[in-house]
């Protein structure tokens, strides 16, 4: 099973060394093999020990892995036509695939790990390989942003490890060497002798994760990087890397909930509201697709974190799934949308001819409207359930009115984002001049995959599966 999981990535890694003109064609299709083990993992009885106590599959990470695999497939497909939209040399192209494979391996480790250390190692591997993927673009901006990513990513990653060690230190007196095991720690969280040490550790870990996801105060950092790099990188970020980060957050916060729920909630609540405050106003001013989607991705991650700590597990997971499918889809389509210049929003959805073109603009409109959680987008349901969970927390807390006010502010901030997206959508669809643009079958295919995945998310069996997690 383990071999099967890593096989596609390893094959891609190997093939990327073959210097041939047509190597990138089979690469995309190899990625489909990932579906076999991930689907199998979904089906298997949980928990399934993949590699001792180190890699354990449960409902949560099987779901996250499956989602990220679909994203991986979609991105691999869309990569086939990367050279049609941007200038990229053959060598760089293959190296991109190589690092993509490393990235993928690292993240599969991270997602499946039941061990803080392994989780961290996988994440670090992914982070470092991303640096190179950003660098594939030979522009000055990309070079600068690659360094930026290197530095800030390294800091963030170090913070996460620092926090992990602090948590380890707090739990070692009761658990010994096994204190890095998520499940064990969760089971014994109440026995931790020095909750303060644990909480500091948790705070450091979450700060690291938040920085990595581009929360306050690093909001524009991620957006700038995604702007500077090729569009599939952004898709990988939001679809796979962030899933690995968020699953870590899920696990850590689960333990923190056991230790002291109020502290956790207050911390995450203040942090995410602050983030959304900043992000909503930044979105209001954005002038290009990349930053728009990237910032909206930050907003969604903040919401997911918030929903999760509010106890809205189902909402958080649904939102996560929707985000993981929608954002890569949108990022991938920016490649086509921006073919007439980066800052041309007006009329970006016009001028698509033929069946492919029609399907393309239709899908992109659907994705755009789904991002702002119009029904029947999964985000509609997840936001409803998530805010419901928050209201419930508010009702059981002491500061009901203050919480209500905060939730209201949050909703109004989301309205600002809504307004911007409507503006962008209308402008794309109805304003500006018509330039004819070309859409390639592979990208369209990946968009269709995402669309189907989205539809699958709101199917009752999937919903029930999600409700059954935890």
């Amino acid at each position: 099973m383990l071999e099967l999981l890593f096989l596609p990535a390893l094959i891609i890694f190997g093939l990327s060394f073959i210097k041939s003109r047509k190597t990138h064609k089979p690469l995309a299709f190899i990625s489909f093999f990932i579906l076999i083990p991930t689907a199998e993992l979904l089906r298997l009885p949980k928990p399934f020990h993949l590699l001792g106590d180190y890699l354990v599959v449960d409902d949560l990470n099987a779901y996250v892995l499956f989602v990220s695999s679909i994203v991986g497939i979609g991105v691999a497909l869309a990569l086939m036509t990367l050279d049609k939209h941007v200038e990229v040399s053959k060598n760089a192209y293959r190296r991109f695939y190589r690092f993509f494979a490393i990235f993928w391996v690292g993240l599969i480790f991270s997602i499946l790990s039941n061990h803080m250390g392994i989780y961290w190692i996988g994440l670090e591997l992914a982070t470092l390989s991303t640096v190179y993927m950003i660098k594939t673009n030979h522009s000055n901006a990309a070079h600068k942003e690659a360094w930026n990513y290197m530095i800030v990513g390294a800091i963030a990653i170090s913070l996460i490890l620092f926090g992990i060690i602090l948590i380890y230190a707090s739990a070692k007196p009761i658990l010994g060497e096994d204190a890095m095991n998520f499940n064990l720690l969760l089971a014994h969280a109440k026995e931790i002798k020095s909750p303060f040490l644990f909480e500091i550790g948790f705070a450091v870990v979450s700060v690291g994760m938040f920085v990595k996801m581009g929360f306050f105060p690093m909001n524009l950092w991620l957006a700038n990087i995604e702007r500077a790099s090729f569009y599939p990188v952004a898709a990988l970020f939001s679809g796979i890397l962030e899933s690995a980060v968020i699953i870590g957050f899920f696990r850590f916060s689960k333990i923190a909930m056991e230790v002291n729920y109020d502290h956790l909630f207050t911390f995450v609540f203040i942090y995410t509201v602050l983030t959304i405050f900043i992000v909503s106003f930044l979105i209001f001013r954005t002038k290009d697709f990349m930053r728009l989607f990237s910032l909206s991705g930050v907003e969604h991650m903040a919401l997911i974190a918030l929903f999760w700590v509010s106890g809205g597990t189902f909402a958080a997971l649904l939102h996560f799934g929707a985000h993981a499918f929608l954002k890569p889809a949108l990022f991938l389509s920016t490649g086509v949308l921006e073919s007439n210049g980066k800052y041309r929003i007006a009329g970006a959805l016009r001028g698509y001819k033929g069946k492919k073109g029609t399907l393309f603009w239709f899908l992109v409109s659907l994705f755009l409207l789904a991002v702002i959680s119009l029904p029947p987008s999964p985000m509609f349901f997840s936001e409803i359930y998530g805010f419901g969970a928050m209201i419930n927390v508010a009702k059981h807390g002491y500061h009901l009115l203050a919480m209500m006010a905060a939730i209201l502010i949050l909703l109004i901030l989301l309205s600002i984002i809504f307004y911007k997206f409507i503006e962008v959508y209308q402008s794309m669809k109805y304003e500006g001049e018509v330039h004819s643009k070309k859409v390639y079958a592979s990208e369209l295919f990946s968009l269709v995959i995402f669309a189907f995945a989205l539809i699958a998310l709101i199917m009752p069996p999937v919903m029930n599966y999600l409700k059954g997690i935890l």
Partner: protein
Amino acid sequence: MVDFFIGLFLASLITALFTTRLYRLLMWYSFNSFTLGVLALLIGMKLQDNAMLITGIATILIKAVGIPYFLKSFSQKFHFVRQITPEIKVQYAIMLIPAILVFTFYLAEPITNMIANNSNYVAISISSLFLSLLLMMEHKNVAPKIIGFLSMENSLFLLGITATDGMPMLVELGIFFDLLMAIIVINLLFHREEMKNA
């Protein structure tokens, strides 16, 4: 003995903050890593922990010798700017460093029930984390930033060694692996730049 080396670790880090030359900085980093390695060996011997001993030796080999050497060769290969003046004024830094130390001890004060039963170790690790961040902040050039990042790694190890009496072997090896990977990536980054300039 352990406390003495911890003191040396901190001292070397603080000195590194005031350094204005790249090679001097590398030297202080190397010294810093060396004290860390010695610490690991000392604690490892005390605890009869073989893993810790391996870690100590690896630290000395990789961090105290290998990485400074690589970096030095990079700097010669890619013609780094070797004159590195801190951006933050010395006057501020003088105030800031004690403040950080005071703060971290204040922060760590409520920590109880440690395995090594000494919350001061945590405080020193956190403060060295802050100091390495400071190191990254005060330089605009990439090279000192990398060293800052590496000393952050060191402070992590310090925490792992002193406060928790060593991490699981797997994790430590993983960290080393990633460190090597980081060096490769850094090399590549410089390399690409070089190629483009040429």
